């Protein structure tokens, strides 16, 4: 028996985070072998592996069969946000999403560091040690790349396009209320969204980027609908499993 029922409020809340980690890790992984230079290839691929590891740890709290749950659930049962479902075959978009996502992810884990659940606390503590590297990496690479004008314009263009999508990370699932009252998490998405915007403002100020950080309210999507990129990802994820769904792969 898993620790939390996936259909409970807390289960839904943890599933949303797990799905985000699973999807971002998978999309980051696309860059293996083709990142801008080899040293960066190794660093970025490591981040992809870490995010998948976080997904595994979180899925493990809500299911006994991680692969069936992570790969073969009905698409309507996923709770990932638009921002991680988007396919980004462009390095600037990928780099900016990495910075935005990890800035947010770090805050999300911090909110779990004092969880009422000892299991959640343990996972958060471990994830935070990896996250500090992710945030450092993202901030360093963005800050170094905006020092030339051409690259600065490329990064600013990505940031302006992606910032509104990034707000979907703070769309809360209905189960968040239960996660808060039970103390499994200690901060609401609304509170975290404010910290997120402030962290981004600090970064753009430090780097001298003239981009106003305004997060439009994301509405009550509850993460119930999938981005149009999701279907291809879902099919690609199941390509092998579909050959023999009952086999041990």
């Amino acid at each position, binding site marked *: 028996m898993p620790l939390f029922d996936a259909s409970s409020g807390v289960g839904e809340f943890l599933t949303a985070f797990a799905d985000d980690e699973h999807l971002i890790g998978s999309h980051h992984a696309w860059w293996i072998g083709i990142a801008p*230079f080899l*040293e960066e290839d*190794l*660093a970025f691929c*490591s981040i992809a592996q870490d995010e998948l590891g976080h997904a595994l740890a979180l899925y493990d709290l809500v299911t006994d069969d991680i692969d069936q749950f992570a790969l073969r659930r009905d698409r309507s049962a996923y709770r990932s946000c638009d921002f991680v479902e988007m396919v980004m075959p462009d390095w600037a978009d990928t780099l900016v999403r990495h910075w935005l996502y990890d800035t947010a992810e770090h805050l999300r884990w911090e909110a779990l560091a004092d969880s009422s659940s000892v299991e959640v606390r343990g996972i958060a503590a471990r994830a935070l040690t990896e996250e500090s*590297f992710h945030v450092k*990496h993202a901030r*360093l690479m963005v800050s170094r790349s905006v020092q030339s004008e051409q690259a600065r314009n490329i990064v600013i263009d990505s940031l302006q396009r992606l910032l509104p999508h990034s707000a979907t990370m703070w769309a809360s699932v209905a189960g968040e209320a239960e996660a808060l009252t039970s103390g499994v998490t200690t901060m609401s998405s609304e509170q975290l969204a404010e910290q997120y915007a402030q962290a981004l403002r600090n970064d753009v100020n430090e780097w001298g980027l003239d981009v106003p950080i305004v997060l439009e309210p994301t509405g009550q999507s509850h993460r119930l609908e999938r981005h149009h990129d999701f279907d291809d990802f879902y099919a690609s994820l199941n390509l092998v499993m579909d050959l023999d769904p009952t086999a041990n792969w």
Partner: protein
Amino acid sequence: MTASHIFEVFLKAEGKSEFRHAGSLGAADREMALLLARECYSRRGEGHEIWVVRRDDIGVADTRDLSANFVKPHRMNDGKRVAEHRRSQREDE
């Protein structure tokens, strides 16, 4: 990345061992080199500590100067004479 710098990477394993040279990498600056070194040279935790040093900052000794010390018998003692003396004493007893 041709104009960026080459850094030499040194790892220290857990315990009493000293820092050892692991290899090199390309990076724009020291902070970046430190960040990138882990996944180049310590993917399975080989280094509990890591140093990076710009290759240009390393002083290299002339091997001819060093070779002068390859044979310095007056700084060594293999202990043979004393051992021989003790052996002959034992035989006398």
